[in-house]
């Protein structure tokens, strides 16, 4: 019984990992940036909008993770109440592998981006007119999350 369902279990593990790890990473990143943002606002409340944007930047990985999980689930047939497709074990492994880039790159890039956002807040504090530049540095980190998202989506779609 278990072996019969192993394919779907593996596929589901992949989808869950993608949402799980990327989500945890984003939560850590956003909370780090949020602490720094709160510190900025105690002294310069007028910078609220700028630091809020910086805080939000590491949050996207969680959304990407959700996205990959969602696409994987809908491909497996677990969403929308239709019939669940029977998956072979090797198909399950393929889904699992497809989700891994988003899961791992999502986690680490979100944490790293959170740190970069914290550093960028110093720019907002000391040079409020340069906030545009402050936003670019964390966005650089996000590039790799986007690449991981892309490859995960392409692979899931290709299975």
């Amino acid at each position, binding site marked *: 019984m278990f072996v019969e369902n192993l394919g779907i279990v593996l596929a589901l593990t992949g989808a869950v990992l993608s949402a799980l790890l990327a989500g945890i990473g984003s939560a850590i990143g956003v909370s780090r940036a949020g602490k720094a943002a709160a510190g900025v606002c105690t002294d310069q409340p007028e910078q609220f909008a700028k630091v809020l*944007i910086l805080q*939000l*930047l590491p*949050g*996207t990985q969680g*959304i*990407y993770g*959700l*996205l990959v999980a*969602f*696409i994987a689930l809908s491909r497996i047939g677990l*969403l*929308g109440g239709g019939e669940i497709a029977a998956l072979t074990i090797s198909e399950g492994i393929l889904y699992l592998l497809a989700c891994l880039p988003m899961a791992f790159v999502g986690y680490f890039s979100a944490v790293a981006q959170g740190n970069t956002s914290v550093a960028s807040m110093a720019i907002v504090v000391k040079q409020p007119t*340069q*906030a*545009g*530049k402050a*936003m*670019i540095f964390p*966005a*650089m980190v*996000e*590039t790799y999350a*986007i*690449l991981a*998202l*892309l490859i995960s*989506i*392409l692979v899931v*779609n290709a299975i």
Partner: protein
Amino acid sequence: MSVMPMQRVTICALKKNKKDILNILQRTGTIQINDIDSDDSAFQKADTSENVIALTKKIQVAEQALKIMQQYQPDEKSMFSSLQGRTIITVEEYQNKSEKSDEMYETAERTVELARKVAECQAAVINPQNQIEALEPWLALDVPLNSSQTKSTASFAGSLKGAWTLNEIYEKLAQLDEENSFDAVSVEIINSNKNQTCIFVTCSKSLAAKIEESLRTLGFTPPSVTYDVAPKHAVDELNASIKKYADDKLAYEEEIKGLAQQKESMRFLVDFLNMKKDECEVAKNLIQSKNTFYLEGYILKEKAPKLAKCLNSKFDIALDFVDSADEDTPVALKNNAFVSGTESVVESYSLPASNEPDPTPVISIFYYFFFGLMLGDFVYGLIMFLGCFIMLRKFKNMEPGTKKFLRMFMYCSISTMFWGAMFGSYMGDIVDVVSANWFGNKVTIPALWFVPLNEPMRMLVYSFAFGLIHMFVGLGMLGYKDIKNKQYLDFLYDVVFWYALLIGLILMLLNTSLFQSMAGMSFTFPPVLMTIAQWMSIVGAVGIILTSGRESRGFKRILKGLYGLYGVSGWLSDVLSYSRLLALGLATGVIASVINQMAAMLGTGVIGTILFIVVLIFGHAVNIGINALGAYVHTNRLQFVEFFGKFYDGGGKTFKPFAANTAYYKFKEDLE
């Protein structure tokens, strides 16, 4: 549509007119005044630092007063109040008001003093309140707390820890009474609870010290507060003083509320003082002799004749204008409405140097294009468009920076609508979901082009193609710059060779089966074209190796040339970077679909429909916010890294005219 031509201006005029001239310059904001070094014995710099310090103090007082007034009489702020812009004031109004600035300053000082007094009153009641609390247990006692005495008896008050009964106290005292002499003792319990027992002890004078010592071994402590009157009276006195402070505070607060009616003039005062301070700071930069002064600065060329006319008609003055375009010249941009929105993008990277072309027009087209691709939803675009459009129409007086920003988003939203229709995305798949669940008949608005989620590889190829066009235009900009500066050889080495190499390589790549199977396309180029492509890339590569190290000699030159050729890998990673166009576009659409699906799970009944709408509004609002932010940031990145990296140096200094840097009022005065 470009960098504005600048002129260097020098002004020499009579000292008695200095203030008036500076005021006109400040109100019209036309000249950026330079700091002049003077070794001349006739011309000296005026030292205005004392005035600046005095004015800075005054500004602090006025700002503090304004803050206090706002606490007592908050502004009715709407969500969009920041869009309203500064109030317009005419020169006459300004002059009338500035005559009253001394009065205003007195009001400001009074307000600050009153606020200080209010704070003092608040602090002053804390001590009596604590004392009342300490006296509370003693209220039943009708003699003063500091022990009173008669001819032969002494009495004292104090508390024991914990709850005690009279008998327990007498018993303990009896146990401690070694000489059996405690006969004339009376203990009275004033108040008792589980934490402490307040007692009043009366005894013969000779025993007083001994008894007190005995009680101390039981944990007896004298009261923390002492008064010469009975506790009840003391509390009354304290309450009276608290009431007095409260009354005072109320009176002060009433006065502040009265003064807060003059909030507007306080705003004026803050602006007025700030302008004065700026004037003093600028006055440091000009030099003066006994009767004349002299200043140097930059002015926009188009404003120069007007300024000359205006000043010549009012004063005896010598003005001189010279064209200026060296690297010290500050830079100001001027573009039409469509382009100027993205000026802030260029500014946040770096302004073009004064001899460099303004990249904003090219940026703007790609900016709107890519932003739309990344957000890519018709309804989202429509919502953003309506929001920006209505705000732009409603708040005509908004500050130029805000206006440009909104205008940029307005054009971005038009592009978003366009791409939404091309990709068939209307709030994700809202039409499908509503029609299938509520009307039982699934309707899909067909995409005008194709649906990226169904054909991701096709979209990826187009993303790379858009990216290549973007970067080729960037390389073209480098060529334009070289030709404009008459560096024709640089144009050949840095632009033509690269075009040859890249186009040759791309043609060869397109012809491979690997690429065609990945992209799902199939075509073959004629062999002639392939030969041309091969030769193009060979000529380009050899040219780059030979020329990109041209400032070095010998062996080093070839090494540098090879390193230059290695730049191809940079182009490859740059192209891959455009895959974000696909990824972010998919993200918007898929998240929107998730929201729709979750909302539709609530059923199609009346309650389900209402909840459906609530979930939709909330979910899509969040989705627009997050994805518009993503599109904004990543479009910026594509411009800054991939596009600017090809040609743009920047490093221009911003033109910062000496102007009224006010927070609340602005002048309606233009040079006639």
